[in-house]
């Protein structure tokens, strides 16, 4: 059984990515807890990764130089690296803010406003 021999087209993958992206966008807009917002951000980055890999899988042909054939996968890998760095720094910030404010509610984080 070769799972790679799929018959689902590019547009289906793009729709899955769009669906995940829009759910993440809704989470960023609608959530109050800052950790929930970070989780939604991760969903959005993941959706972008699906698009990278899907384009890499479907828009290739034999004429491309063999050394560039996995460029989309490499781009997705860099996105994963940046996402990992982002969640580490983000959660450290959340913990610091919580220590000072005893809250994770973004509605209360307004002390940069004058």
């Amino acid at each position: 059984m070769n799972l790679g021999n799929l018959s689902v087209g590019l547009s289906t993958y793009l729709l899955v990515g769009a669906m995940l992206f829009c759910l993440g966008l809704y989470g960023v807009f609608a959530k109050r807890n800052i950790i929930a917002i970070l989780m939604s951000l991760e969903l959005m980055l993941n959706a972008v990764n699906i698009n990278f890999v899907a384009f890499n899988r479907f828009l290739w042909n034999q004429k491309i130089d063999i050394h560039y054939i996995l460029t989309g996968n490499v781009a997705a890998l860099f996105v994963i690296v940046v996402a990992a760095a982002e969640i580490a720094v983000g959660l450290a910030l959340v913990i610091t803010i919580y220590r000072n404010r005893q809250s994770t509610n973004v509605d209360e984080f307004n002390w940069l406003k004058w």
Partner: protein
Amino acid sequence: MGTIVFFIFAILAIAAAWGVVTSRNIVHSAFYLALSFSGVAVLYVLMNADFLAAVQLLVYTGAVSIMVVFAVMLTLRGEVSDSNPENRKWGWGAFISVLLFAVIALVVLTNPDWRILPSAWTSGGSAEDMSLLLLSQFMIPFEAAAVLLTVALAGAVILAKGVKENK
């Protein structure tokens, strides 16, 4: 076969993402997040990106979700069953998200360039194939990513630990 697997795991990933943004309990949200990442990893396997699927499971399901769970546990206050509320303007967020999805779906479904089925894949997606790219064409970004990870790690430790006043 591939089609059935695709639809099972695509629906799983989307349903889990729905759970992330609608669950009232933030601990459930964190676990739904891990489930969604795992579903996406299976989609990577279907697209012949084996190495990326492994990285997805290791970094996202293994590390990111667990770090989110830790942060949740460290900052939980009050009743856990109402720890993840919506704000007052969630209706606007839902409206904009649905609108964006409609636009993207319209573009994707009406563009004939993207209505393509996969051709046979002959050029791997394993760690070996990707390392050839990473250590030749993408050498500089690769090193920059290493520096970025180191800096982010040190920054996270300093932020979370706090800097002691030096007398």
